[in-house]
């Protein structure tokens, strides 16, 4: 996690640039404190609490990745479950090779990014709606390929081996920490990506691709970077899902439902804001915890919430926060001042 390292005002040439405000430094400090607190949770609360939080962390990771993809790269994919599934199966495969499943999560991230290279060559030929549907079709193709593979368990899936000699409590805590790390890394990766030079290009791409090109932005490369990062993050999240469930089933892990969750969370939380998926995931998680018993009604309610949010709150919850308070936890902007106007 990036710390609150202050950007020293650089003085020379009559202009200086500031990146973060005092408010954002406090915000970031608070966020780091929350992460430290969360890391200590397995020592203080029941396992039922930490194991349900695994779901929240997975949602945060996935939604952050979708936000990068759609909110900044302008790529509204409904096929990110491809990487959730690939990541999940990578952990299974790695365990077969004797690799520890927790380490397997890192391998899953890497392998997802590698597969994203050829996939992006295909998907990037599609525009707009075709891109969205195309990514879904690609995810289905990956699912069908997995089903055809006997070594991966075919249509009925597989159990995860390699964790049986670990005690239940230790395994639950390790799973929790792995999920937390994946979520933090995903959010931090998004932040660092956007804070850097690629971030400036990406933000421009988000606002206007054609104008970005005319300003010299290599739009395709910027998009490809985001696509690969997003694949890696979703792959790691898929790995966590499998480590948590101790088994995999192709239809579930490659389900379009993952993309639906990501979209819901990002839309509610605020698309194009790094903070949006955090807030959205918490809201979604709460709805899921309290309303899951209502079955179909729960799904209908989710739909109503999403539609209402899109109509009345197009910038999402975090958009409202920014609008009212100007608070940004992740300062990725640039402020220009004159050095002689103190």
């Amino acid at each position, binding site marked *: 996690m990036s710390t609150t390292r202050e950007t020293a005002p*650089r003085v*020379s*040439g*009559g*202009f*200086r*640039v500031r990146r973060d405000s005092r408010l954002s430094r406090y915000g970031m400090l608070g966020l780091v404190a929350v992460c430290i607190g969360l890391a200590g949770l397995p020592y203080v609360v029941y396992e039922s609490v930490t194991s349900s939080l695994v779901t929240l962390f997975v949602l945060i990771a996935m939604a952050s990745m979708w936000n990068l993809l759609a909110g900044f790269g302008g790529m509204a994919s409904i096929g990110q479950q491809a990487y959730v599934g690939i990541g999940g199966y990578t952990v299974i495969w790695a365990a077969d090779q004797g690799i520890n499943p927790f380490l397997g999560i890192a391998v899953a991230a890497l392998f997802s990014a590698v597969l994203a290279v050829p996939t992006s060559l295909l998907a990037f030929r599609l525009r707009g709606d075709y891109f969205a549907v195309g990514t879904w079709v690609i995810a289905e193709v990956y699912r069908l390929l997995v089903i055809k593979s006997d070594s991966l368990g075919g249509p009925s899936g597989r159990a995860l081996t390699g964790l049986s000699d670990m005690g239940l409590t230790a395994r639950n805590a390790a799973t929790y920490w792995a999920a937390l790390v994946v979520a933090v890394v995903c959010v931090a990766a998004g932040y660092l990506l956007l804070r850097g*030079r690629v971030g*400036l*290009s990406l*933000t*421009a791409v*988000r*606002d*206007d691709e*054609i*104008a*970005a*090109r*005319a*300003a*010299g*932005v*290599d*739009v395709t490369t910027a998009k490809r970077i985001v696509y690969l990062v997003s694949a890696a993050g979703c792959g790691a999240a898929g790995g966590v899902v499998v480590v948590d469930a101790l088994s995999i089933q192709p239809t579930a892990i490659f389900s379009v439902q993952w993309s639906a969750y990501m979209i819901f969370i990002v839309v509610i939380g605020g698309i*194009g804001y790094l903070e949006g998926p955090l807030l959205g995931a918490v809201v979604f998680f709460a709805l899921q915890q309290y309303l899951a018993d209502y079955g179909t009604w729960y799904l209908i309610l989710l739909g109503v919430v999403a539609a209402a949010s899109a109509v009345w709150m197009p910038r999402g919850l975090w958009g409202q926060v920014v609008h009212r308070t100007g608070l940004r936890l992740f300062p990725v*902007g*640039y*402020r*220009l001042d*004159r050095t002689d106007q103190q």
Partner: protein
Amino acid sequence: MTDPTHHLLELRGVTKRFGKVTVATDLDLVVSAGETLGIVGPNGAGKTSLFAMISGDLHPDSGAVLFAGRDITGVSAHRRARLGLGRTYQVPRPFEKMTVFENVLVAATTGAGTRGQAAATLAGETLDRTGMYDVANRVAGSLTLLQRKRLELARALATRPRLVLLDEVAGGLTDPEVAELVTLVRSLHDTGIAVVWIEHVVHALTATVDRLACLAGGRVVADGLPADVLADPTVRELYLGQAVATDEDVA
């Protein structure tokens, strides 16, 4: 002047059709280094499309575009920007959710290839030069049309262009504002930047350009000294009726 090494930009036999509409027919055009060329022509003449083919937003059906002695017909738009081709859009395209400074900083970093303090200085100075410093930290989406047009100009200049394409940047400006713009474009000329300026406000052009070309139906119907082109019977017939109306609007 016919020595090709003197031509910064050259279009050779460029043709482009949209269905039945022909926006360029076997079009030839040259711009020398540091030259200021004005382009006039009736609505729908193909002026903006010409810019799009020079900047790489639009690909000609046939013909070639050369820049600094190099065939750039197949070169992508962002590479052309980095090579020194800056452009503005007739209908401004700001990065709406970014600040004015960030808008210009994008061009200074990716277009001009500057980093850190050098990028900040380039962007800051460009804002000064275009009169946009006071709104530097405002979100571009909140700008007036006039400010958006200036931002177009600032962003194009921050790429450190060798040639800048201005598409109706004076439209809707008051006379003092037009005068300011003319001063700015002249200062570009003094720093050796070549300019191609499409404008319906003819008096702004005649006060600035070395050369004038008139486009109609995808063809260059006149090209030469401003006074000669404006006196050309074809141009008068084609275009001046409209230009007089534009001048009356301004007055």
